[in-house]
């Protein structure tokens, strides 16, 4: 039996036997099925994943005709992060002309709605100038980021400190007040960007501060959709399930805490979201086959119930891609192909 080269969830190379590979694929899907109370992958699907990981080629791809649309979070910021000295508009031109981007996204370096609010006019001008010279549909992206609404960064008492003092009700009230402020900020900034001509708004990393964060994204989406019926809203998640930091928040009667992707997408649909971006976290101490099998199990369940397009998050540390700043092409291409083909995705 030959040895198969693959990687751990932190990206480091590892050699596995065929039996080890099959074992990790089975364990990954079982873990997801157990946590999400969803169906595990079938024998045929696990064999398909085995064949992808057993492929001797460095790079694999989808079959022709099965390609999907790509959307990006914080695209221009990534070139800044790499210390490439280009303006954000040039960065987006590079994305659409040189990197094969199907959509482009403008975002501020803070990448949260709250800090954009006082400088929204400057951001609108950059967006309007971007629209003059680009062709692909343009999102404006930012995070709800409820963390910025608690002291010392924001106006409301810090729920984490209140919880330590046993002040549960006060902590919950703080989250609820933060939701109301965050919704106002998201609607304010998004309205400005849409009035300036943006094709869509990307609420990215939603739920990063738990169920209140997710609720803020949903409420803002609902208001924006009522205000602008033609607006495109992409709502991307922060993690695979909604952290119950408040614990009792509901949306249209459904408790948000603990929801996995297949339940989250139904909330997004109720809010009028156009494109949903689910997340499955990669575990760095488990192998990439384990992580990818697990991620596909969650996302497949989400796609099966979704009525809106699904763009899965497949950046560093999510969607079966290892948790490393420089994901290798061997594992990224395997994750990309398998996720698209097994889940019948609409995009990444």
């Amino acid at each position, binding site marked *: 039996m030959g040895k198969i080269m693959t990687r751990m969830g932190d990206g480091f190379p590892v050699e596995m036997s065929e039996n080890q590979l099959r074992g990790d694929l089975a364990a990954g899907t079982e873990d997801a099925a157990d946590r999400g109370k969803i169906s595990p992958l079938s024998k045929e699907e696990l064999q398909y994943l085995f064949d992808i990981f057993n492929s001797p080629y460095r*790079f*694999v*791809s*989808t079959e*022709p*005709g*099965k*390609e*999907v*649309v*790509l*959307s*990006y979070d914080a*695209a221009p910021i*990534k070139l800044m992060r790499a210390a490439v000295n280009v303006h954000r508009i040039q960065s987006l031109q590079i*994305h*659409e*002309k040189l*990197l*094969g*981007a*199907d*959509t482009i996204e403008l975002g501020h370096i803070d990448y949260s709605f709250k800090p954009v609010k006082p400088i929204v006019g400057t951001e609108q001008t950059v967006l*309007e100038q971007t*629209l*003059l*010279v*680009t*062709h*692909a*549909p343009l999102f404006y992206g930012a995070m709800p980021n409820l963390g910025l609404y608690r002291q010392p960064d924001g106006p409301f008492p810090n729920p984490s400190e209140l919880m330590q003092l046993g002040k549960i009700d006060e902590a919950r009230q703080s989250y609820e007040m933060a939701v109301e402020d965050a919704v106002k900020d998201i609607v304010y900034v998004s309205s400005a960007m*849409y*009035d*300036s*001509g*943006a*094709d*869509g708004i990307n609420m990215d990393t939603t739920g990063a501060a738990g169920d209140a964060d997710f609720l803020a994204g949903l409420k803002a989406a609902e208001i924006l959709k009522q205000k602008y019926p*033609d607006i*495109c809203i992409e709502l991307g998640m922060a993690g695979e399930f909604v952290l119950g930091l408040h614990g009792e928040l509901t949306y249209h009667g459904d408790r948000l805490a603990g929801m996995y992707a297949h339940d989250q997408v139904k909330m997004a649909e109720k809010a009028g979201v*156009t*494109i949903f971006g689910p997340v499955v976290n990669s575990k760095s101490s488990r192998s990439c086959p384990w992580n990818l099998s697990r991620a596909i199990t969650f996302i497949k369940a989400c796609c099966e119930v979704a009525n*809106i*397009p699904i763009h899965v998050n*497949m*950046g*560093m540390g999510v969607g079966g*891609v290892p948790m490393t700043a*420089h*994901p290798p092409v061997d594992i*990224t*291409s395997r994750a*990309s*192909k398998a*996720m*698209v083909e097994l889940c019948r*995705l*609409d*995009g*990444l």
Partner: protein
Amino acid sequence: MAVSHAIASGMGGMRTAGDLVARMQMTRGMKIQEAKNYVADKLNVSISDLTDPVVMTEVREELEIGSLNPLPGCLKGLEAKMRIAEVLDIDINCIRRLRNKGLL
């Protein structure tokens, strides 16, 4: 990483028809197959042509809907998006904004 995904499973952006298919997801909420069918029908090409850069370069140049290496005098940027809205029969927000200002 973005490049790995673009090559492994992306449609190719404006090298091909990826941006046009994306517009149908964004404006009409279409799932991927419906969006591809719609764009292929409007451009009068096959589904497989949508991701072929050679075929799509010709189609894009002929329709003036934006190309990677624009020829002198052809429509570019916002001008090309006016044509995209027309070809795909959709509203594009920034073009609607021009119309509302009485510029079209």
